[in-house]
């Protein structure tokens, strides 16, 4: 019955499969092209972040580091928000920086 309703209403809430295919392809091709597995990419991100946190306090929850395709070139694009310094005291920031990185 639900399937029939979906069909009558258009396609209901399911994502059209072409959109899923496109997203999956874009993801897999980045890793194919660079010969960089998702695991390695995560490890690289963690390392980058721990280097940066040695110097400045960063807001880890809102970090966005990803590989972007521009024509047939790939770019590593990083958005790394810094935490406001005045809320924290400098010693604590340093200690946090050392802890970070899994």
């Amino acid at each position: 019955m639900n399937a029939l309703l979906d069909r009558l209403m258009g396609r209901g809430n399911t994502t059209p499969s072409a959109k899923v295919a496109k997203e999956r392809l874009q993801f897999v091709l980045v890793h194919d092209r660079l010969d960089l597995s998702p695991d390695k990419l995560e490890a690289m991100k963690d390392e980058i972040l721990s280097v940066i946190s040695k110097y400045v306090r960063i807001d880890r929850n809102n970090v966005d580091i990803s590989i972007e395709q521009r024509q047939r070139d790939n770019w590593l694009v990083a958005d790394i928000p810094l935490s406001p310094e005045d809320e924290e005291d400098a010693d604590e920031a340093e200690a946090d920086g050392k802890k970070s990185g899994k």
Partner: protein
Amino acid sequence: MTARVITITSGKGGVGKTTATANIAVGLALLGKKVIAIDADIGLRNLDVILGLENRIVYDLVDVVEGRCKLRQAMIKHKAFPELYLIPAAQTRDKTAVSPSDMLTITKKLRDDFDFILIDSPAGIERGFRNAIAAADDVLVVTNPEVSSVRDADRIIGLLEAEEKGPGRLIVNRIKMDMVRRGEMLSMDDVVDILAIKLIGVVPEDETVLTSSNRGEPAAGNEKSKAGQAFRNIARRLAGEEVPFMSLDHAEGVLQRLARLFSSSMPSTG
């Protein structure tokens, strides 16, 4: 006359390389161009059957390479399209029987006598592919709007760039416009977005492609075939004409459009 060498390749098998080669060759011949198609898929000869020339083979590409015949003797002239010739692949040998430099030598000898030399590449990224692209001035990458063939096309484009033959131009083959419209098949725009190379043709899924290969008469020679028209358009673009791409609606016949109207107004059972 100095021919342009155009290689048709794909990475993945079964996406329609040979069909595309045969149909583009016929399309070019219909434009009055002198064309020779070379089947570089040694061991899995097929371009001959698609073109309807399987009964006329005496010598093949490997016979030329190994000096058992003159180049002329391996060239089969098509009776229906007198401007079209084929050099068939050997059926009983493998890819190592030909080298990239053999392909350079052969195409060099042919360049003066033709407008276009089309090379049908085997699937894969190994020796056969290297042979097929060795002499290419231009490469056409065939893909279907489906994840595995798009992924393989991307790999091929990467290899073409590494060999300084790329990125090539894209043929999206076997597209079903009604599925694209429902969001259930990648559109040509999606595929172009993902692969980031220029499009040279969009060919709709069309039964006449199969019925044409059944008869050994490529669809490009059939005025009524939609896919045939798409292949003729590719030929015209190769010949330097500006041809607009078929829109979503044009790629579908009036009857199919009516059928779609009716079927979308009632729930289907399957």
